[in-house]
């Protein structure tokens, strides 16, 4: 049971991460294509505020404050009772509201598969494609050293 709970939490967090990293336009488009319900009671927000970003001295040492980032959050309750949250970088309130609804729907066992396959999976695959492209473009700038051979043997 504890293992299952941990797995659920990891999956929910992964879905939230995918939503936070995706653009509001992509979320709206997939939402409409999937015909997901967007009625929910707003318990908080959507509201924009600041999160202070922390780094570590030397990369792995003591934490220090680097600067702020805009973050928009929302909390919603579905008619069926589930409460969903979203925190995402930026100021896109529509995105925060939909992502919070998605989080609430995800917690409804009857809806989870639909949210995963129609919304999260395509977003995740688009993000992976972008990341893979960037990685490959960076890899093409890798320096291949070679040793100059002096004279002939």
């Amino acid at each position: 049971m504890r293992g299952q709970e941990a797995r659920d939490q990891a999956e929910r967090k992964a879905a939230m991460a995918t939503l936070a990293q995706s653009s509001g336009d992509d979320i709206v488009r997939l939402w409409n294509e999937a015909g997901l319900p967007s009625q929910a009671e707003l318990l908080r927000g959507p509201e924009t505020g600041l999160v202070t970003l922390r780094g570590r001295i030397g990369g792995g040492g003591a934490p220090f404050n680097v600067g702020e980032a805009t973050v928009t959050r929302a909390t919603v309750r579905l008619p069926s009772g589930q409460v969903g949250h979203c925190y995402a970088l930026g100021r896109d309130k529509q995105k925060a509201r939909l992502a919070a609804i998605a989080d609430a729907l995800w917690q409804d066992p009857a809806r989870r598969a639909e949210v995963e396959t129609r919304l999260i999976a395509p977003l995740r695959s688009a993000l992976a494609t972008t990341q893979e492209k960037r990685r490959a473009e960076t890899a093409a700038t890798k320096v291949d050293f070679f040793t100059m051979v002096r004279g002939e043997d």
Partner: protein
Amino acid sequence: MYVAVKGGEAAIRNAHSLLADRRRGDRSVPALRLDQIVEQLALGVDRVMSEGSLYDRELAALAIVQARGDMIEAIFLVRAYRTTLPRFGYSKPIDTGAMLVERRVSATYKDLPGGQLLGPTFDYTHRLLDPGLAAGADVAEPLRRETEKLAMPRVSAILAREGLIEADGQMPQDHVPGDITREPLEFPMARDIRLQALSRGDEGFLLALGYSTQRGYARNHPFVGEIRIGEVELELDVPELPFAAPLGTVRVTECQMVNQFKGSAKAPPQFTRGYGLVFGQSERKAMAMALCDRALRASELGEDVVAAAQDEEFVISHSDNVQATGFVEHLKLPHYVDFQAELDLVRRMRAEYEARENPTKVEEKREAAE
């Protein structure tokens, strides 16, 4: 007698509408869109984010266009906007070791794990203006190379294995990271607070100070151990979730400066380190920050404080360009009354001086007047 005056409302109003007109410029030229600034003036946007101390590309782009490209004015606008927003909290510390790397170079190790990745750099360009760009020529897609994912440990971790380099900077166990946006500056300050100030400090000021250390003012033999640029994930602990809320990714530049150190009463001979971490792709700034961080550790490492770059109060008090510009630029605002008072004072001092230097002449003057 002092008479209060007021006025200038109409002049100010008209000046601002003239500013709006000049900002827009020739109406036959299309207006800039924010996405054009974000995409095509990306490093300017990054500078405004880092010195404005607010990670938000669109707001930085808006600030740049509103400030007509005046970067310090844009940074000022962003700083002012920040004060209008509530605070949700402090993120968990980012892990630059897990970065999706877009550039990573080391000047100390040729064959480091993960390799040297040049990325989108100005290095090795010939600095020749490109007429093709002026003509709006198409740009080819970049080449790709398919490789397996390679771990890219920070170079400091590699150096640490030999024990010849100091560890990542630690603070006492119960130390809470200081925050210069909450508490006023106090000297001497802990390294974590200094780093926060440096990260938002003026690039030009830190660059000049870093340069001064290389030229011999607080010489500290630096090498770039590593520079890495890329995206890292950001997380925030919130009470309503049983795990840290994932917020998305931010692009940062990290610089690990490695400095030869011959040892002192406080520390054995080894490599010491300076650290730079800045929003966006801001390599020059991250390097300058790392040089200043190392120079400012002089007392901690038992070095003599002999140069400007080592003087914590001097560096940190003057690194913020919004404060600096505020104090310098306020000089152009009306000081009529102050000046009248000083004018009166100088007149009196001059009269006294002349009376002292040339008593007869003053006497003659008085007689002539009578």
